[in-house]
């Protein structure tokens, strides 16, 4: 193919030249070009290498069905592989390069694989590399593991950039009455009809210009412009550069808008693409039709492309794609193209496979009937075409024609993919030799060529009819068809016994012989054929080759095409960038971050933060270059010696209100809540239905019918959902309202022997938290010296005299300023999660690490909290025999035998002589205890700590280190009597 730019004609703007680079070489195109048309105009023939055989490939189409000109656009972080050059809008500075080739697509060392092509038939890797016979026959994959990397390197598409994507992407939602997909003549008419009737219409077009096939017809320009103007005036929301890639339930469509892909880089603040979810009352699919090729030897040579593409390059892009052109057709559609190419100065031979045709288009070239292409000859570009004639009993060679371009029209396939997404079964139309979408039970209507309507005038009527139906009116669709003479169904041309490769699916290098081989090996289902040969599984999803493959399988089976069936198309219609799927939910916004009211205050005071569910919580407050270990040990020791203040705002808080609130809590918790007095808090355990512990926390009774439940930080959402479910499904008569108030309050734990002193110094009434006024597990409303009102409860997670102080979140920082001043004055500190963990491990208090969903209330050592006097959720199933076994793993404390050593959280507890297996238990938490002066841990061990008194176990952690000898002790490792807490 020796394409050249014409001096005039086409839609390109010759006053706006654009410089771009192809494989490092500077070339020039014009505004309005695609990368493919610009490359063609610059005489570039070989633009890619094939997937498996590394055969040279050129431009095969002018649209998204492209299987040859698949390139990498951009470089470094913006390198995007597998871009169809036919769909890439040219821009100044565009960089593109060939892929799947070395050193380049013109001289590719990988082409040597083509010499071994006979070994690379369908399923060759399954057969060859699943074990080396006879040594690995039926069992081994050793060699496969070695070859796999080589195969993957040799075969494939482009490589994605390893760098982070520098661009951003948006998600977006839109709603409309009618979504029209495709802005060709039928789509424009449908959009106009619906909009003029007052409907809210979105018109999505994948091209950067509206018009569809009108763009390829210079004489249709006035009509196109008039339609577009009318559409805009009617208020249609037009979305160019937008592909509808999927149709889903209830009128939902997935769209990708390429916002800035036509620019060197996105403008400031602009996303590269937008991922749209559009919900429409009705959808019109005016998605057009794709011209298909025919399988014959060398049908993938550079210089072989669809006839419609030849017309597009001539009329839209002002490029004469060849000088000596052979057009091989089976239908009327190529006649117009032949005439236009001849008028543009090409020497044209039109070979019509039909013995006669009634077409009256002025041809301007030679017309030969009864000939079909048998072989395209040439290597890096076609030089001649060998014809064949069907004798009735088979094909016979029938002459040859020199050429530099072979245009092929094997018929047209309406784009029914989106209808197929909705489960609409394609129906074979033998007269038109194509699949048409059947009737859809949903409000989805086909229009134009997508409905098999080939005639331009009928496309208008089809669009109008589809729009009317979308609006709920009766309308008659024009009948499919529109050619003067019927099509000659033709899928493959080959001489008997020929070994030459005729491609069915050029993008995946699937040949006609591969289809026949699959049939010979028993893959008779079209679904199996697809998977065995990978036919239709490349990035074009079989747009070029599926019907040819079906036809060949039908022939092999001796059936008609409809009897073979077709595979169901699935989203996406075209590939969707992962960035578009992710949208802005990346990096720090992969998950929404929850900040406590004291977040900024903590950071200002030296906190190092850590994740706790969605929250960021202070991990530790390092002083003067302390390590985390030094910091948390200091913090924990300070709490035990004086006091510490810890942000506990992230704890889940649920307002439980209503006259039945106490009864509700009484049913949820294992222990009694019905008689909890106002002004009192109680620690509670709630179980799942299956008797396992779900969550724990304290609940405060603020008034007769008003409680505040606290949950674990990470369990809050789960508990809220669970409680709502109970109220709505099991106990709908209980008058209880639940409201999350986790965000309403800023909360701190004030812990340590001097905690009362610090707290009372902050209050307007210092005696409000005296031992008498606020005994252990008491709750009072307090007023701070600065006027802030809040709640104080005397509860302890650390085992020290401790309080939790809650104020409205907006007052959190002011409260903290006050409290921190008093804390510092008394020699106290701020402490984070790590020290919090140390303090609770010393006390044997459980958290999510221990309450992991496998644990009963008895396992956790809290069996005394399981009331025998009342029913509660989980009560029945917690007494299953298996859960009552004495040798179940139970909560225990763990000391290293050698007190200078440590061990790992997550280690298995094994008997010394047992290095394998599940062991006798596991370690849930480890810390260095400043109170005890050595490392300690919590965990579960079979039978509990008393069963292992005086015995040695091994904390075994083979992945991370050597086993450590440990002894099992009571989980209450510090102040077991609780004297300090009650102090």
């Amino acid at each position, binding site marked *: 193919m020796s394409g050249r730019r014409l001096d005039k004609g086409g839609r390109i703007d010759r006053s706006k030249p654009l410089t771009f680079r192809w494989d490092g070489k500077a070339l020039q195109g014009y505004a309005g070009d695609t990368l493919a048309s610009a490359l063609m105009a610059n005489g570039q023939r070989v633009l890619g290498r094939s997937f498996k055989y590394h055969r040279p490939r050129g431009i095969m189409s002018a649209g998204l069905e492209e299987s040859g000109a698949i390139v990498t656009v951009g470089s470094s972080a913006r390198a995007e592989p597998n871009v169809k050059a036919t769909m890439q809008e040219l821009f100044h500075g565009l960089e593109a390069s060939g892929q799947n080739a070395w050193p380049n697509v013109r001289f590719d060392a990988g082409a040597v694989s083509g010499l071994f092509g006979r070994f690379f038939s369908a399923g060759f890797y399954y057969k060859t590399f699943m074990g080396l016979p006879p040594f690995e026959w039926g069992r081994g994959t050793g060699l496969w593991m070695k070859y796999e990397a080589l195969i993957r390197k040799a075969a494939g598409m482009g490589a994605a950039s390893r760098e982070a994507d520098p661009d*951003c992407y*948006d*998600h*977006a*939602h*839109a*709603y409309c009455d009618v979504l029209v997909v495709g802005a060709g003549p039928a789509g424009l008419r449908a959009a106009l009809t619906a909009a003029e009737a007052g409907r*809210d219409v979105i018109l999505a077009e994948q091209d950067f210009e509206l018009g569809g096939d009108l763009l390829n017809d210079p004489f249709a320009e006035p009509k196109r412009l008039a339609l577009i103007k009318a559409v805009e005036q009617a208020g249609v929301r037009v979305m160019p550069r937008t592909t509808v890639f999927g149709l889903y339930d209830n009128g939902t469509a997935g769209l990708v808008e390429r916002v800035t892909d036509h620019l060197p880089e996105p403008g*400031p*603040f*602009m*996303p590269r693409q937008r991922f749209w*979810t559009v*919900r429409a009352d009705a959808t019109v699919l005016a998605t057009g039709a794709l011209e298909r090729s025919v399988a014959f030897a060398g049908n993938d040579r550079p210089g072989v492309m669809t006839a419609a593409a030849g017309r597009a390059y001539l009329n839209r892009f002002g490029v004469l794609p060849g000088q000596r052109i052979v057009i091989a057709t089976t239908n009327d559609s190529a006649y117009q193209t032949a005439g236009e190419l001849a008028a543009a100065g090409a020497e044209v031979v039109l070979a019509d496979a039909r013995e006669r045709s009634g077409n009256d288009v002025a041809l301007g070239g030679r017309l030969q009937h009864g000939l079909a292409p048998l072989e395209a000859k040439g290597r890096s570009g076609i030089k001649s075409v060998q014809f064949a004639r069907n004798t009735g009993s088979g094909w016979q060679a029938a002459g040859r024609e020199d050429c530099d371009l072979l245009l092929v029209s094997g018929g047209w396939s309406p784009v029914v993919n989106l209808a197929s997404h909705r489960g609409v079964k394609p129906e074979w139309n033998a007269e038109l030799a194509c699949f048409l979408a059947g009737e859809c039970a949903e409000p989805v209507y086909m229009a134009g060529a997508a409905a098999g309507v080939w005639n331009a005038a009928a496309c208008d009527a089809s669009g109008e009819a589809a729009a009317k139906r979308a609006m709920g009116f009766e309308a008659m669709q024009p009948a499919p068809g529109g050619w003067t003479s019927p099509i000659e169904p033709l899928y493959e041309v080959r001489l008997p016994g020929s070994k030459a490769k005729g491609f069915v699916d050029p993008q995946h290098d699937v040949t006609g012989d591969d289809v026949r081989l699959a049939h010979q090996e028993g893959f008779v289902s079209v679904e199996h054929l697809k998977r065995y040969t990978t036919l239709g599984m490349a990035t074009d999803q079989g747009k070029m080759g599926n019907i040819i493959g079906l036809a060949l399988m039908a022939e092999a089976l001796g059936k008609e095409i409809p009897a073979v069936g077709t595979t169901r198309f699935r989203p996406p219609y075209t590939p969707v960038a992962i960035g578009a799927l992710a949208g*802005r*939910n990346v990096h*720090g*916004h992969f998950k*929404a*971050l*929850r*900040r*406590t*009211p004291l977040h*900024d205050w903590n950071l200002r005071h030296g906190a190092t933060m850590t994740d706790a569910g969605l*929250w960021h919580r202070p991990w530790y407050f390092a002083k003067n270059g302390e390590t985390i270990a030094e910091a948390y040990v200091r913090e924990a020791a300070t709490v035990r010696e004086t006091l510490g203040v810890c942000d506990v705002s*992230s704890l889940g808080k649920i*307002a439980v*209100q*209503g*006259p039945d609130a106490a009864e509700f809590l009484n049913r949820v918790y294992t222990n009694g809540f019905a008689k909890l007095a106002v002004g009192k808090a109680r620690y509670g355990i709630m179980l799942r239905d299956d008797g396992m512990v779900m969550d724990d926390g304290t609940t405060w009774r603020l*008034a007769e*019918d*008003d409680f505040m439940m606290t949950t674990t930080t990470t369990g809050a959402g789960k508990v809220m959902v669970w409680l709502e479910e109970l109220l709505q499904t099991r106990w709908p008569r209980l*008058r209880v*309202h639940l*409201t*999350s*108030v*986790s*965000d*309403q*309050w*800023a909360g701190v734990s004030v812990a340590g022997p001097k905690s009362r002193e610090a707290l009372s110094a902050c209050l307007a009434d210092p005696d409000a938290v005296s031992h008498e006024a606020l005994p252990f597990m008491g709750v009072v409303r307090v007023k701070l010296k*600065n*006027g*802030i009102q809040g709640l104080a409860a005397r509860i302890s997670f650390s085992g020290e005299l401790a309080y939790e102080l809650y104020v*409205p*979140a*907006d*007052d*959190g*920082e*002011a409260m903290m*300023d006050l409290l921190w001043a008093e804390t510092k004055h008394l020699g106290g500190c701020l402490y984070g999660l790590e020290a919090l963990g140390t303090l609770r491990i010393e006390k044997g208090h459980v958290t999510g690490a221990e309450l992991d969903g496998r644990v009963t209330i008895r396992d956790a050592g809290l069996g005394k909290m399981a009331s025998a006097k009342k029913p509660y959720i989980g009560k029945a199933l917690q007494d299953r025999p298996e859960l009552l076994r004495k040798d179940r793993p139970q909560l225990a404390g763990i000391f290293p035998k050698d007190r200078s050593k440590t061990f790992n959280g997550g280690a298995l507890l094994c008997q010394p002589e047992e290095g394998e297996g599940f062991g006798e238990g596991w370690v849930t938490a480890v810390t260095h205890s400043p109170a005890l002066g050595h490392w300690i841990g919590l965990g579960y061990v079979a039978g509990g700590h008393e069963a292992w008194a005086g015995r040695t176990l091994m904390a075994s952690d083979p992945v991370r280190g050597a086993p450590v000898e440990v002894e099992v002790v009571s989980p209450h490792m510090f102040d077991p009597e609780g004297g300090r807490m009650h102090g």
Partner: protein
Amino acid sequence: MDDQMNALQKQLVPVRGGKPGPAGVTLSQLTGFRLTQIAAWPETLAEAGALAAAAAGCGAAPGPGRAAQGKDGTLLRVEPLKWWLLQRAGQTSVPLQSGSAVAILDLSSARTLVQVSGPQGATLLNHFLPLDLRQASFPAGHAASTAFHHVGVTLWRTNAGFMLALPRSFAASLRELLEGSALQYGLKTRETAFSLATGELE
């Protein structure tokens, strides 16, 4: 008394950013409001509605998915049995107390209020909210509970724009998303004291 800090305080400096020209979106951080939840029981719905309407100073409590503006506050029906009463901090109105008909709960610190206004306000919100915000479908006086990046939020429309109530702990993170997307339309951010005019519906 206090140095009240809301979730977005550090971002409250008025900013004009993104695409030059007239701002397509204005994000206004609203301060100084009181948010009270009024929850009814099925059998006290009418009585509770009357109490809520009296507190807001409007004729009748709004039905599901609606907001109503009264002389003393804005009333939103956020759940079948729950209203939110939004008032200026310090606003005096008919006192509300929990009783047999209603359960009252202060949520003033639990939500951060952001007004989203400007010609691209709906477009911006639709980057995140799967709601039909076309004027005919969601005019002033409509309210919805919906999800913003998997976080439950409350949205209602006034004549001045959209009001978005964000859970306080998520507010900064969600606002970063709003701002990041809004730059393409031209963004103005500011702090505004809540007033009944802000929430004026008609």
